[in-house]
């Protein structure tokens, strides 16, 4: 339980002359829910993109399960056990909810292209298995009745859930959630936090999440790191973060000169 699953070591990320992240380090232990918070533009999503291999950091490295994964292609990072959701929901719009989840099983479905074309036995075996597993995941999210609906026909809250379910389908050990509660009403948020706790327990997940809703963060996270202009200004328990002077200044502005 105590070993660090993910270690961000001294990451610096520059876009042209802009330093988006400045020598940031933190580590997430197995089984934790870790929060990454900070004002808009603080570099939170950039960190996600570095972890998932979409960006190559200017300096530093990402260590996952005692292996350096910086420079690994995004689709390989998923296979190593890191799945993500996006800040703005990015479902496969023309596909059904079930098909969206099935994409998550892509690398766990072992039949070749020719086996699919000639409909050989392995095709049927694997399709049957992943369909059953996908329905089990939908059940976990209370989405079973929407399985055959088009993904974009669902409500905003349910689309969020489908996106998380799709990420869970890749069988990750670390789940990255980018503003999961954004745009949700308090009831939907409460429902979501219950589900996140539930999937964390049932699928044995470690979760790193970005969020603005401090109530949600306070309720969910074991530890938080607060970023401002790419620098870490606080690390510790969420309850301490909301009374920290630097954090308040970053969010609300500096009142000392007023």
């Amino acid at each position: 339980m105590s070993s660090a699953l993910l270690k961000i070591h001294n990451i610096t990320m520059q876009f042209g002359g802009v330093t988006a992240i400045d020598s940031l380090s933190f580590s997430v232990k197995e089984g934790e829910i870790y929060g990454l918070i900070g004002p808009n533009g603080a570099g939170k999503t950039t960190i996600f993109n570095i972890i998932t291999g979409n960006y190559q950091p200017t300096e530093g490295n990402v260590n996952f399960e005692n292996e350096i994964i910086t420079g690994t292609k995004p689709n390989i990072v998923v296979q190593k056990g890191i799945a993500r959701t996006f800040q703005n929901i990015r479902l496969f719009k023309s596909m059904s909810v079930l098909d969206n989840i099935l994409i998550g099983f892509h690398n766990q479905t072992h039949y070749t292209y020719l086996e699919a074309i000639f409909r050989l036995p392995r095709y049927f075996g694997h399709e049957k298995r992943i369909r059953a597993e996908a329905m089990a995941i939908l059940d976990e999210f209370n989405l079973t009745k929407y399985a055959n609906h088009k993904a974009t026909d669902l409500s905003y809250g349910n689309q969020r859930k489908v996106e998380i379910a799709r990420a869970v389908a890749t069988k990750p050990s670390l789940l990255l959630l980018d503003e999961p509660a954004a745009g949700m009403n308090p009831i939907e948020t409460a429902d979501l936090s219950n589900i996140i706790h539930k999937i964390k327990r049932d699928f044995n997940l470690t979760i790193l999440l970005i969020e603005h809703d401090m109530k949600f963060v306070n309720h969910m996270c074991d530890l938080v790191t607060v970023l401002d202009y790419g620098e870490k200004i606080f690390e510790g328990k969420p309850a301490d973060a909301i009374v920290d002077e630097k954090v308040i200044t970053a969010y609300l502005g500096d009142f000392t000169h007023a």
Partner: protein
Amino acid sequence: MKSLIIKVLLIAASLWLIWFLHNNLSSYRLSMIINIGIFAILALSYNLINGVAGQFSLEPNGFVAIGAYMTAIFIIPMDTKLDMYALTDPAPIILQMQANFPIALLAGGLASAFIAFMLSVPVFRVRGDYLAIVTLGFGFIIRIFAMNSPSYTNGAMGLNDIPDFADFRWVGSIVIITFMVMIHIIYSKYGRAMKALRDDEDAAIAMGVNTFKIKTFAFMTSAFFEGIGGGLLASFLTTITPDQFTFLLTFYLLIIIVLGGLGSMTGTLVAAIVIGFGLEELRFLDSEMVIFGFETDAHPGMRMVIFSVLLIITMLFARRGLFGDKELSEFFKRKQS
């Protein structure tokens, strides 16, 4: 099990229909449906890369040309070749290439698929509009190559006296095979991945899909059947010249798949039939007509005007094509749930 029985029955019925039509239609009607069948094969395969995988590419004329020339060279008898190559002597390898029709078709398909494999590395480095331009260039290159290598393709004079093996039994059976393969791909993890990368490529990558590999599969499969379709076309027309494989061919296929619905194979079949018949049956518009007692002169080309207007009207009412991106069977499923 139930679906397997339905599938077998449908195939048997289609085969019976093909043989029935082959034995009972006039040669004019037969050549018309052979033409439709060949374009259905080409459009079905084009729809895989363009509609299902959503990679807007404009290269099928190139692959059709490769398949047509390969097949033609394989099935033209050796002494005919010696007479035909007028500009220069044929390259020795051209004379050695001899095979029966099915092998020749397969060779055409495999040659196209191989070229597609070679192309995929440079082509899929770009997305969207850029992809269209790069693939468009490839179509031009193939045609110019055919023009300027007389020892292989007989240059601008093209190849003629190609044996006419492509009857409706061949074409119809290959339509069925192509359709089955496409449907099997669509309802598999590969088809789902193709649709996913069409909807949102970055999200597909974030789900662990190797999108480059999936695009290459779609591209190669598409090229394979375009090559085979090209081979059938060569044998059906018995004459091929580089000028047949211009961008207009691609454009014609594009009309079929857009009308049928990008991503819908059943839609493509229907559109191929509608357009094929439409162009033939509207021929009376080109000649003199009597409209409300007034005699009009013949206006050659009027057929295309009316046809285009009909197409425009259809697209106004069915903006995503006749079938959208659904297969025929999915319309029935939707009603049940």
